[in-house]
């Protein structure tokens, strides 16, 4: 008589699903070192991608918001060092003068300009009794505040009288105050030395946010005439900031000013102009193209770290499964079917990548949060970076958990048992 073997389950998998998950957790717990390393690889792979992308995007956002806080309806006239062939270099020229600013203010040809702020900016060492800092010194007039959206937290700004009398008074940005006097000190009335001159502090501006070079919080305002005559010995202006009557009149204002200045500088050909007029939108688009480059750089780095993380995951998965070929052979000898083995290893890989993935996301978010706290920049997490990092790492983890397991499960059990 022939006795037919009839398996109880029709499916090729001879193990219950919930049981499989419990079994996988058990196996992962047994080998803490191996599990820990695999999870670590995934955590770092995912975490670094999220942190890098977030870093790039928060920098971009903070630059954009910083530019927008510069002022509304703002046009900035900068001198040019001159024209050499096709190359136009901006900044550093001496072609803008106080008279140009006065002309823009007073000319009957100019109808669209609300406020004119002639400025001279340079960097000098600022010293108090024990502290000193190198910061930007802005020679300003009373119109500066209105044009640049600067507000005071205490004291007064530079007045017309201060400008006409070449007064030795200074208004400090909040960062400079902290640099020179520390936290929670009211420096108004105190004296600081800028270059070789002593100045009395008359006011402090409110923080506008932003960081690094060009922060509007890290500067010292002095009367324009004082900056030109006493500090820098200059007769020209480094820029003229102009507030147009409205946003719609920006282009018209730019044209009016352009022709006036060409006329005043005795230039007939606009392409030979010794100055440039930039609107806030120009600066914004330049800056965003710069930050765009920055972001694509960071994305490149993120892609590489994703790749490196992926290879790390791949490695540990391959090693883990290969190391367990004998175990696979034994399980098959005891009756595990091919699909049961594959499902077991797949379940383990899925659990590993999910635990690692979730930890990695937390790590990435925490790293970005710390970065934004340190740099007082906007905290921003891109959901796409989370999804991308997670999906890629999970796919790699699962693929390289599954593939060698499938290979081992396809071996004759005796070959797997003999595997060294």
């Amino acid at each position, binding site marked *: 008589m022939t006795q037919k*073997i009839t398996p109880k389950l029709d499916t090729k998998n*001879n*193990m*219950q699903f919930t049981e499989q998950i419990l079994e996988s957790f058990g196996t992962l717990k047994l*080998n803490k070192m191996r599990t820990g390393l695999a999870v670590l690889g995934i955590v770092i792979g995912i975490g670094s991608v999220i942190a890098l992308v977030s870093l790039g995007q928060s920098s971009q956002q903070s630059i954009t918001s910083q530019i927008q806080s510069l002022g509304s309806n703002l046009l900035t006239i900068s001198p040019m060092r001159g024209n050499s062939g096709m190359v136009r270099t901006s900044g550093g020229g001496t072609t803008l003068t106080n008279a140009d600013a006065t002309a823009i203010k007073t000319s009957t040809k100019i109808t669209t300009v609300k406020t004119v702020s002639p400025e001279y900016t340079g960097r000098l060492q600022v010293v108090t009794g024990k502290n000193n800092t190198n910061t930007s010194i802005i020679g300003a007039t009373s119109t500066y505040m209105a044009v640049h959206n600067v507000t005071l937290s205490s004291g007064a700004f530079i007045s017309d009288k201060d400008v006409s009398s070449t007064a030795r008074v200074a208004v400090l940005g909040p960062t400079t105050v902290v640099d020179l006097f520390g936290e929670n000190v009211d420096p108004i009335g105190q004296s600081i030395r800028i270059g070789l001159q002593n100045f009395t502090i008359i006011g402090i501006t409110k923080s506008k946010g932003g960081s690094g070079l060009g922060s509007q919080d890290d500067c010292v305002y002095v009367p324009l005439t004082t900056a030109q005559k006493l500090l820098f010995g200059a007769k020209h202006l480094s820029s003229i900031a102009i507030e147009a009557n409205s946003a719609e009149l920006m282009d018209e204002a730019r044209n009016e000013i352009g022709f006036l200045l060409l006329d005043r500088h005795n230039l007939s050909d606009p392409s030979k102009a010794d100055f440039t007029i930039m609107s806030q939108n120009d600066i914004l688009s330049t800056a965003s193209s710069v930050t765009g480059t920055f972001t694509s750089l960071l994305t490149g780095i993120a892609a590489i770290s994703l790749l490196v993380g992926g290879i790390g995951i791949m490695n540990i998965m391959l090693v883990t499964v290969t190391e367990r070929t004998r175990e696979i052979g034994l399980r098959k000898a005891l*009756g*595990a*079917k091919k699909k049961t083995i594959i499902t077991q290893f797949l379940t383990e890989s899925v659990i590993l990548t999910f635990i690692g993935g979730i930890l990695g996301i937390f790590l990435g978010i925490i790293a970005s949060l710390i970065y934004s706290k340190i740099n007082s920049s906007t905290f921003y997490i891109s959901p796409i970076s989370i999804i991308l990092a997670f999906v890629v790492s999970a796919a790699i983890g699962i693929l390289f958990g599954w593939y060698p397991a499938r290979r081992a499960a396809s071996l*004759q059990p005796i070959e797997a048992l003999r595997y060294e």
Partner: protein
Amino acid sequence: MTNAIIEVTNLSKIYKTDILETTALDNVSFKINRGEFVAIMGPSGSGKSTLMHILGALDKPTKGIYILDGENVEKLNDDELSDIRNRKIGFIFQAFNLLPRTTCLKNVMLPMVYGSVSKEKREKKAKKLLTMVGLSDRMLHTSNQISGGQQQRVAIARSLAMDPALILADEPTGNIASIQAEEIMNIFQDLNDKGHTVVMITHELDIAEHAKRIIQIKDGKIVSDTKNHTQTRHKK
């Protein structure tokens, strides 16, 4: 119903590499009946391990027919072979092959996990079997916390988990001390007394003499097949 558990006819196994053809088994035929205790003996390289792997459905013969408990093994696919191994064969390996860092209880339960036995039944059966091999106080020890002899006893308990038709032992005493080896042989004899069919591979004569029948293999061929009338027995 025939009384044969194992029926092997003209079985050959040839290993091929690029340059060499090695005949590990050459036209072997024999029968093992229910309730027998057979030792397959031979020097290393005689083909006894190859025979063992084929009898255990771990490997397939190149030629010949193998009928295990009424089932023609040759015609089965990979998964059906897993099923056969699970239900009909209890393995005992020379290197014990327990899952490392896993408790004795779980090791014994493993074949039942693949045999779709319910969790309560599994645990009950595993405890019963471990008690039977004298390890009731080691159930929750992991396999690397116990001695070689104890590990082999766990492996014996595991081999019995699915009530197999055949217990197949490959050099079961090869890795353990001789005093413990005697204990293992006692267990085999007890099992055989209870009606289990035991096939054991060994190269040691004093171990083989615990069996009721000894098959000698040399160069892939059976050279002798005799009843062992002087079976070594240790009565407690």
